[in-house]
């Protein structure tokens, strides 16, 4: 059954879109990522213009992350305090990143930088998470009783402890200076804007390894944060670029809101390290696909103008 998308100006199969939404929503609820890094290329593969794919995906993520946030909030997995600070940083970083991209576009060579940032970040993050969680899983097998020891270790050095505005984040069970999540938020915001993604797959490792938050709280808090970022993106894209296709978003969110619920309840049954290694494998899979796309000669040497 086909449906015509008024902004994307193309006709698509309804069931295919609902299925796609279900899959990405599932991953979103499971790992706390928006799924933009998977959804946007998949939409482009079925003929949606790149600019519409990216903007509409942000709109769809609002729904999936709202659904996921609610589910995680019920499980006590959302650290609102931490989420808000990351958001403040993320908004600032996003604005800076958009500006950097504008300058790069003007000087040329932006696409090269975007692709390289993407591959290096995805590959680096994926590899690190993979081996780290593999080690953790091995250790857990060797000594299952010690597995649940809570890491209440103070963040690494004396420098971070000497920063002002030290706050105890009770949901996550960590103490940090408020400046740390804000600064990390800015960093992720800049990178996300350059790559044109929501940044969930960067934010999640940052929360795990740099903010030392427990995996389940990371997922809930990340979704909470992503929801706001995507509200902002949806509005700006609708307002200045007219690239949000509501019909497409509705079809996707039919699947993704339900998928997010299923993902959340599956995530509950898995251990933190199991979740991490699965996310790492997903990220590495996407990296390999991107590298192949860069190395193999494309069958068509032309692409739609606009987007990347």
């Amino acid at each position, binding site marked *: 059954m086909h*449906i015509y998308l008024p902004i994307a100006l193309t006709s698509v199969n309804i069931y295919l879109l609902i299925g796609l939404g279900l899959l990405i929503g599932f991953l979103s609820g499971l790992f706390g990522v928006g799924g933009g890094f998977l959804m946007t290329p998949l939409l482009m593969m079925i003929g949606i213009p790149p600019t519409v794919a990216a903007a509409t995906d942000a709109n769809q993520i609002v729904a999936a992350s709202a659904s996921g946030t609610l589910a995680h909030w019920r499980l006590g997995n959302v650290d609102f305090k931490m989420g808000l600070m990351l958001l403040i940083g993320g908004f600032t970083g996003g604005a800076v990143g958009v500006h950097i991209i504008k300058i790069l576009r003007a000087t040329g060579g932006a*696409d090269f930088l975007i692709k390289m940032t993407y591959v290096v970040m995805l590959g680096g993050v994926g590899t690190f998470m993979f081996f780290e969680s593999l080690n953790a899983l091995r250790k857990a097998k060797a000594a299952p009783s010690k597995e649940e020891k809570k890491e209440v270790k103070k963040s690494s050095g004396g420098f971070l402890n000497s920063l002002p505005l030290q706050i105890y984040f009770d949901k996550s069970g960590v103490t940090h200076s408020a400046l740390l999540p804000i600064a990390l938020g800015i960093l992720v915001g800049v990178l996300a804007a350059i790559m044109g993604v929501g940044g969930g797959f960067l934010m999640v490792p940052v929360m795990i390894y740099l903010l030392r938050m427990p995996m389940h709280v990371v997922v809930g808090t990340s979704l909470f944060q992503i929801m706001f970022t995507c509200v902002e993106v949806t509005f700006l894209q609708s307002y200045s670029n007219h690239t949000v296709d509501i019909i497409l978003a509705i079809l996707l*969110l039919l699947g993704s809101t339900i998928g997010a619920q299923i993902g959340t309840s599956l995530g509950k049954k898995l251990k933190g390290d199991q979740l991490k290694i699965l996310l790492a494998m997903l990220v590495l899979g996407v990296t390999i696909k991107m590298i192949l796309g860069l190395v193999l000669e494309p069958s*068509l040497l032309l692409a*739609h103008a606009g987007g990347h």
Partner: protein
Amino acid sequence: MISNNKMRIRGFKMWWIAVLVLACCALGSNGVQAMNLTVKPSEIPITIGYGGKNVVIKGTTSEPGEVIIKISSKTEAARFKYKGKAAGLFWMKIGDIEYKPVPSVYKIYSSGKIDEILNANERASYYIGYDSLENMVQIEGGPKNMDKDLWFKQLVKFKEENGLYGIQEGAVKFVSDNQFECKIHWPFQAMPDDYKIEAFLVKDQHVLDKADTMLKVKRAGIVKQFTSLAFGKPAVYGVMAIVIAMIAGFGVGMVFKGGGAH
């Protein structure tokens, strides 16, 4: 009497001449107007369930021959990103390329092989076949020292993969000596626009006759409303998109709790 008779005979002759001239004119104009062309439907509304449309093109010719049908849009500049090897290693989009003028839609249907039934000069002057498009197109941007032919073929490939260009030889069928018919599936990828359909009667390598008609493709119903809202009131549209997503997200979250999913 005699002169009267002469007058009568002269009048009779005049009358006959008039009839003959009229008949000739009628025949002559018949020769020009005998070729006609209709398309059903002649208007295609793009509504929410739109996925392209089956269209039938019918016509009659003044005499037997071969028929070529061309459907095309107005010509314009087509802009793309082109891919190449960056740093000699990675395939990626490395710059802009522009083709102009080219039609956004270009479809040819014929009763026989166009290269065999029509001579090259007339193919060029009536813009029939990809060669005729290639002759008129200018390519700007693109890689240095580019091979025009190769990059034009890329354009054709891109358009064909999107259903917007195509040449189908043998798609025009004759139902009788001078009645032809062509059944096509109009591609959903074609933008709302007015498209010109032209039919050419071809004999002995030359165009003998032609006729044309229009196919109008328009947005309608909810598709039209959404488009005008998105472009006319983008702030309202944006807020609407967010509200729908929020309600759907939280709504599904509530339902799952209500259903006792866990």
